[in-house]
């Protein structure tokens, strides 16, 4: 992976701002858009994966313990996962407070 775009100088940008490397949208941190973040109550989680299916940013990943956890680098805090969760296991909390 090349260095983050906010470190590029004007001399390093390809002519016409052409993007030569495919798949680089994964480098784009959309996570800093959010004001709310999802918190999972593992007691209530039934591992159905609906949060994973509905997440518009594909921020959810299955962890080794079998829980779907949102990657906060990508999560925009839209709250769709919390709305769709059939057991109410996901709650949206103000980011600072949830630390």
């Amino acid at each position: 992976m090349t260095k983050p775009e906010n470190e590029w100088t004007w001399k390093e940008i390809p002519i016409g701002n052409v993007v030569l490397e495919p798949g680089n949208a994964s480098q784009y941190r959309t996570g800093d858009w959010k004001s709310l973040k999802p918190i999972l109550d593992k007691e209530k989680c039934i591992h159905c994966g609906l949060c994973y299916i509905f997440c518009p940013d594909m921020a959810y990943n299955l962890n080794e313990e079998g829980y779907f956890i949102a990657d906060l680098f990508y999560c925009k805090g839209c709250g769709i996962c919390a709305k769709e969760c059939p057991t109410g296991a996901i709650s949206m909390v103000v980011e600072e407070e949830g630390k």
Partner: protein
Amino acid sequence: MGKRVGMEVSIAAAEAVKQANVDVISAYPITPQTHIVEHLSEIVANGEMDAEFFCVESEHSALSVCVGSEATGARSFTCTSSQGLALMSEITYIASGLRLPIVMILANRTLSAPLSIWNDHSDVMSIRDCGWIQFFTENGQEVYDHVFISYRLAEDREVLLPVIINMDGFTLSHVIEPFEMIEQEKVDQFLPPYQPLYRLHPDHPITMGAFALPSIFAEAKKAQEVAIWSSMPKILETWKAFGDMTGRYYKPIETYKAEDAETLLVTMGSFGETASVAVDKLREGGRSVGLVKIRLWRPFPFDELKKATLGAKQLVVIDRAISVGGPGGPVASEVRSALYGSDNRPAIYNFVAGISGRDVAPQDFVKMVDKAEIEIEEGNKEGYEIYGVRE
């Protein structure tokens, strides 16, 4: 020497596009550009030229097609005037930002309102800052020549910028002039096939026109700004190579009887030839008057302009567009900026003349010089007026 023929300037411009072996032509007809594209569509329909001619539904689409075709590596051409350029304006910034070497002939025409089909420079001034290299031409031969010059320059790996060739509508586009046509072999030698640096191709996918965050946008624009300034030596080099081939040498700023002149007329476009007749008349009457003609509008040749004008007592800058609510005409603004930091800079009197195609004859240039000299003598060193307006 090439064959000398008499031809309408628009037809010669179309012939140049044919000789430049353009792959894609995309245009929408608008007066006074119409004869150029009509002739091109005829040439293509007759099978005299191996090109795609796109009949689009608007100028916005005309230039959008060129952006797409140029991105695939096809040499592309468009042509417009006035309202057509205004409709294209969104795409002009995209073409230069993507560094696509499209060439456009602009048959300059007034922007509405009031509605007018006649000539002035208000159309191109509306996209002055769009990042294209911009030439102004004085006669038909220069238009014909600059088609080849522009493609070779635009496609240079060290340039890769789109180019606008400005030609005054009707004053140039609809007149018949003598042309020295260049033999096809010479054109082919001067203008080799286009070798794009990047192009859209399924075998090597790349992205063009991607989104830029604030964290990188300024760097992208700086790179574009540096690119257009770095094109200056390439512009000179291309003109030199063209001159060596044809004997017709071009410069960013050209002068006529300007050395030692106390008063200099400064013009851009077809005004130049008429003004030179006025200079001759004034010189015959013992007046110390010369002429400075701006051929290269972007990148603006600040150093060359300074060299040509410092030493004169006064400049009479003639604009063919108004900057409404601004400092007068756009050319005068640039000239003032160029000279602002210089000691003993000349007084600058600015006229806006010939807007919407009103005739400006040699006698009018004489009157403007007379008026400016009197005004400056009376202490009005930064004057501006629209010439010939009925009070």
